[in-house]
C-alpha cells in the first residue's frame, strides 16, 4: 500500500493516458450528469464526482459495435472478411466496486465458460483497472446486500480510497506496483489499513437508513427465485408495470445479452453489428414460423430476475448476478427495479392473501 497525495492525481492520470485509452468518471457540462466515459483529456477524469449514471461495461461490451466487416461480390465471388483491428489497451479509472464486480461477472461469463468470446477478450486484453472506494452511496444503492461494495476486494490493478488529503493506493497486480514505483509513491504508514477500514465503515454506515428491505430479504428472494416458489400473481403484478423499455438490462453491470445484425453500408461492405439486447423484449426469443416459446411479459421479467438472483445463474458468475448498484431502480419507468421486486417477494411471504 502506498500514499497518493491528491496533488499527484494528475500525474497518475497522465502516466496512465500515455499508455492506455483512458476511461473514467467525467461530468457532462450541460446536464451535470456524471458519466463513465472516454476522457477527452486526463484532466477530465473526476475521481470526486458522484457515482457515474452508466456502467463502464460499454468499454468492453459496446452498445453498438461492428465486430466484423465483409465485402462479397457475387459476380466475381470475391470475398473479403475483416475483424476490427485490435484496440489500444484501455484503462478504466475510478471504477466503483459494484461495476468492477459486474466486470468480473463478465470475465467469468465471456471467458470462463466452454467458449471464449473473442470480441470481449480483445476489449479486455491488457486492461488496467483503477478502482475507487465508494464514500457516498446513492439512495438506490444496495451493494452491501450483494457482497459487492462499497470497497473492491479483487479484480483491480490499483484500488484507491479517499483518505481526505490523499488517496490510499492499494496495488493488486504487477501493473499496479509498476505504476506506484513509476510515480515514486511513498509507502503507506502503519495506520493506513486502519484509516481505510474507517472510511469503508463510514460508507457502510450510510446504508443504515437505506436498502432496508433488501438487507433483510434479498437472501429469501434468492431462495424463492431459485426454487420457483415466487407466486405467479407476483410476477403478474411486476409484469403489469413493465414498460418493456429494456433499460434494466442496458444499465445493469452484469447484463450481457446481445443481438447480432448484418447491415449493408453505402460504401459497399456489410457490417456485422453486435448490439445490446434485453430478455424483456417480446421479439428476443421469437422463432421463425410463428413460434415464441416465451410470450407473456411476466415470463420475460421472470427470466431477468432469475438471471440476477438464482443460484443456478450464480454458478456461471461464481456470485449473484446482481451487484447492488441500484441503477435498474433509477431508470425503470414502471418502478420495478430489483429492490422493488425483492419487496414484492417479501410481501407475498409476510402479507399472504387468502
Amino acid at each position, binding site marked *: 500500500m502506498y500514499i497518493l497525495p491528491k496533488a499527484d492525481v494528475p500525474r497518475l492520470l497522465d502516466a496512465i493516458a500515455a499508455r492506455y485509452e483512458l476511461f473514467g468518471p467525467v461530468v457532462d457540462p450541460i446536464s451535470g450528469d456524471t458519466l463513465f466515459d472516454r476522457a477527452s483529456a486526463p484532466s477530465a477524469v473526476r475521481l470526486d464526482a458522484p457515482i457515474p449514471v452508466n456502467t463502464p461495461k460499454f468499454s468492453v461490451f459496446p452498445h453498438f459495435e461492428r465486430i466484423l466487416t465483409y465485402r462479397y461480390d457475387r459476380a466475381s465471388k470475391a470475398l473479403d472478411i475483416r475483424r476490427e483491428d485490435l484496440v489500444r489497451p484501455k484503462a478504466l479509472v475510478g471504477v466503483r466496486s459494484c461495476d468492477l464486480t459486474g466486470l468480473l461477472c463478465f470475465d467469468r461469463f465471456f471467458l470462463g465458460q466452454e*467458449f471464449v468470446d473473442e470480441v470481449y*477478450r480483445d476489449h479486455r486484453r491488457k486492461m488496467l483497472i483503477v478502482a475507487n472506494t465508494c464514500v457516498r452511496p446513492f439512495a438506490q444503492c444496495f451493494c452491501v446486500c450483494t457482497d459487492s461494495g462499497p470497497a473492491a476486494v479483487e479484480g483491480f490493478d490499483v484500488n484507491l480510497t479517499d483518505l481526505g488529503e490523499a488517496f490510499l493506493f492499494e496495488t493488486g497486480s504487477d501493473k499496479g506496483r509498476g505504476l506506484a514505483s513509476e510515480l515514486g509513491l511513498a509507502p503507506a504508514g502503519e495506520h493506513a489499513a486502519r484509516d481505510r477500514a474507517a472510511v469503508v465503515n463510514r460508507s457502510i454506515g450510510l446504508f443504515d437508513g437505506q436498502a432496508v428491505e433488501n438487507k433483510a430479504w434479498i437472501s429469501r428472494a434468492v431462495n424463492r427465485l431459485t426454487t420457483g416458489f415466487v407466486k405467479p400473481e407476483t410476477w403478474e403484478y411486476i409484469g403489469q408495470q413493465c414498460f418493456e423499455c429494456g433499460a434494466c438490462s442496458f444499465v445493469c453491470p452484469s447484463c450481457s*445479452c446481445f443481438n447480432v445484425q*448484418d447491415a449493408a453500408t453505402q460504401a459497399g461492405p456489410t457490417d456485422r453489428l453486435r448490439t445490446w439486447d434485453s430478455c424483456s423484449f417480446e421479439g428476443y426469443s421469437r422463432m421463425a414460423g410463428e413460434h415464441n416459446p416465451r410470450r407473456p411479459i411476466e415470463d420475460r421479467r421472470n427470466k431477468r430476475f432469475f438471471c440476477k438472483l438464482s443460484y443456478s445463474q450464480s454458478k456461471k458468475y461464481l456470485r449473484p448476478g446482481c451487484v447492488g448498484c441500484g441503477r435498474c431502480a433509477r431508470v425503470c419507468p414502471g418502478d420495478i427495479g430489483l429492490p422493488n421486486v425483492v419487496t414484492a417477494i417479501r410481501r407475498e411471504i409476510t402479507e399472504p392473501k387468502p
Partner: protein
Amino acid sequence: MNEPNPAVITTVPTPAVIEEIRPEIEDVRTCYFRFEDPEIEKSFAVRSGQFVMCTVFGAGEFAVSLPWSPEGDRRHLSVRAVGKVTGALARLAPGDKIGIRGPFGNGFPFEAIKGKNIIYVAGGIGIIPLRSSIVHVLLHRPEFGRLILLYGARAPQDLMYRDKIEEWRRTEGFETHITIDRPRPGWTGETGFVHTLIEKAKVPVENTVAFVCGPPIMFNAVIKELSARGLRDDCIISTLERHMKCGIGKCQHCAIGRTLVCTDGPVFTYKQIKTLGEQI
C-alpha cells in the same frame, strides 16, 4: 486469460463454396458445400446432432442443424426459406460463397445407446437433424438392435430426401414407414398422422430409444403415444431449435430457463425437456 478453442470456428465465418443445390420440397433446398481453405476442409470435424451458424453474405447469419453424418457423407445443409436470411440463401447458386461457424452443440449420445432398438419419428422437415443420426447408425448397423423409421408429411410432395428414403426403404434391417396426413390421388402408402404409425409398426419399448423431431403439435402427439406404451422419458431424444445469435453460449437468445440450447443442447432427452420450465 483464456484462449479460444481452436477446433471450433467461433467468431469469423469461414468461407465455403456452394457446389450444388437440390430442391427438396417447397421452400426447402439442400446446398452441398466445401470449405474454400483445403486445410479447414480436411480438419472441420462434426458430431452427428450438432449445428453450425451459416452466414449468407449481405443478409445475416442463422443456426442450422446438420443433416450430414461425419462419416461417408457429403457436407450439406437443408434449409427452409422462412425469413430474411434463409430467403437470401435460397437465392444463391452453385459457385456462391457462404460462411460457416462451428460446429456447436452436444450431438447425439451414440455411445450410451449402443445395443438398443432405435425408433426415428420425424414430422415434415424434422427429418433434417435425424438424417445425420440415421446415416451414422446404418454405418454401424451391428451395434444396434431393431431400427425403425416413422416419417410423416402433409402430402407426398412434402417428403424430404426422397432418394435417401428410397435407399433406406431398400436397406435390409431398416423398417421404414412413411405416411401422409390425408389420402391423395396416386399415393399408395400409409395415411394419417405420424403418431398413428407407432401402433401400426408395433414398435418395441424394452431396450429402446426414440429420436423424435418435428413441429410442436406432432411432437406432443408422438410423446403421448410413446409414453402410453411405457417408453421412459429419458429414452426419448429430441433436438431443439431456438433463435440464436452466437452459438457459443453468450448471446442468451436460446436460453430456456437456465439451459442454453446452443451449449447444453441442442440434443436433449424428453426428461430434460420437461424440466426446462418453458414451452417447447
